[in-house]
């Protein structure tokens, strides 16, 4: 389940698990730029990779399990417009294009010129070697802007992406394996004192 961009120089661990933001020996084109945030997370889902790829490739499905996405509008086969919910009721928007698309295996994307938060990402779908389904591996990089507005956005995109990716992937797994997203939310919970 190796991926050419995701490994540290020594050992088989993914770059996103490195203790230091700029791991010594990482090939230059793979090491995150100063200020970039790199997030990686894998989850094994007990469904064929073709199913998972197809569900993800229809970006309009993403808000079903990605909690901070307000909407994704498809422009053409490679281009889409994303509206993301930011703190304090604000939204952040950008256009994105698909840079790699291998049916049943891989989708990679990056934001276009002019995005307030430059970002790129890829999701890989790999047969689990032990027959447990599909390993879904997401790798994201963000380059939050500077300035006052940037600070607010940075709060979302520097501290939150790892949490967001972790929770989004859990919801994706729940939805794909059980058909629903687990929740204990009210009305079943009692009123809070």
């Amino acid at each position, binding site marked *: 389940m190796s991926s050419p961009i995701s490994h540290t120089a020594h050992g088989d661990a993914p770059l996103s698990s490195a203790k230091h933001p700029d791991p010594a020996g990482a090939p230059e084109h793979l090491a995150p730029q100063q200020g970039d945030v790199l997030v990686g997370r894998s989850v094994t889902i007990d469904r064929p990779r073709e199913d998972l790829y197809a569900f993800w490739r229809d970006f309009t499905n993403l808000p079903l399990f990605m909690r901070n996405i307000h909407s994704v509008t498809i422009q053409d086969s490679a281009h889409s417009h994303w509206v993301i919910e930011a703190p304090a009721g604000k939204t952040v928007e950008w256009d994105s294009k698909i840079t790699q698309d291998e049916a049943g295996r891989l989708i990679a994307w990056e934001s276009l010129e002019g995005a307030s938060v430059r970002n790129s990402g890829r999701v890989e779908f790999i047969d689990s070697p032990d027959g447990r389904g599909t390993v879904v591996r997401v790798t994201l990089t963000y380059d939050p802007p500077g300035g006052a507005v940037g600070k607010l956005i940075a709060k979302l995109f520097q501290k939150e992406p790892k949490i967001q990716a972790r*929770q989004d992937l859990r919801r994706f797994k*729940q939805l794909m*394996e059980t058909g629903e997203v*687990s929740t204990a939310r009210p*009305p079943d919970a*009692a009123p*809070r004192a």
Partner: protein
Amino acid sequence: MRALTWHGKHDVRVDTVADPQIVNPRDAIIKITSTAICGSDLHLYDHTIPTMKAGDVLGHEFMGEVVEVGPGNSKLKVGQRVVVPFVIACGQCYFCKQQQFAACDNSNPAETADMSEFLYGYPMTGAFGYSHLTGGYAGGQAEYVRVPYADVGPILIPDGIEDEKVLFLSDILPTGWMAADNCDIKATDTVAVWGCGPVGLFAVQSAFALGAHRVIAIDHFPHRLDLAKSMGAEVINFEEVEVREALVEMTGGIGPDACIDAVGMESHGLTADSVMDRVKAAVKLVTDQTHGLRQVIIACRKGGKVSIPGVYGGVTDKFPIGALMEKGLSIKSGQTHVQKYMQQLLDLIMEGKLDTTFLISHRLSLEDAPTGYKIFKERQNDVTKVVLKPDGVPRH
């Protein structure tokens, strides 16, 4: 509806709260006919489990009648009687398919699963009425409850058998059974059980049912020891004797082949280590008081088996790792895979081979639930199990 809600240490109240509703397609709403207070609810009552919030509805041992079924649930029908497992399991993840239901990967909501991932390395399963570590799901000490993944957990109960004969399928009966099952009992085995609370007593019963040659039960409450004795166990009162020495002598110098810790994280005792535990817990250096477990590991024979159904949640110290390693003990533990055991245990109940009703000492209305907690906490000798009847109607 009315429900027993948690508000803080030793503060539980019956409040009027919103009725539960179907949220997800596979949900069902159950009208509770019988629900029990579990020994592990006392950990919540004592506030030794973190992530509780004021207003949480407690209760994870319950049964009742299906009153509403979600559009994606083709198993349950309105009017059916069911017992609901305390573990919420999706039935479709890798773990559920291995029958490791208490390790379900999907039932803890994505947002609350973070806490157990940080504490334990991986996110834990969802459960009813047992803090926000396990999802913050409203529990069943209430008139109604929403049951997620209700096409997997609830087991159908035939008419004509009273609630009290099957209620404990929800937790303590399979928990006692799994505790014994985890000992991989051989016909020549002597099994020692620490703690004669409900789980310990069911572990005694289960160990005999699974073929144990002898069972030795350990506690300090005379009435609970009498119950263990009535099931055929030999008993040790730890206030009267030194437990390891007694076990060594009772087993001809060999020691028990399998040892079950049915006490858990608030272990009693006046030995030096347990006093230190209490001091350290008071200043938050440790969370779990484990005198009983230390004794279990020291008393177990070389190459023996240790089973831990007792609940622990955090960290401890003075753990006898040397005795564990040098003696070559095997340890099995875990929250109970209730769904794995329910059908076989229901069959044994229906055949008259297992009786669980002996345990019930008190039957109260839901409105009296706070009294139930208080007496279960304070009068452990004679209050062995409290069953609440939210609708006040005996069921057959």
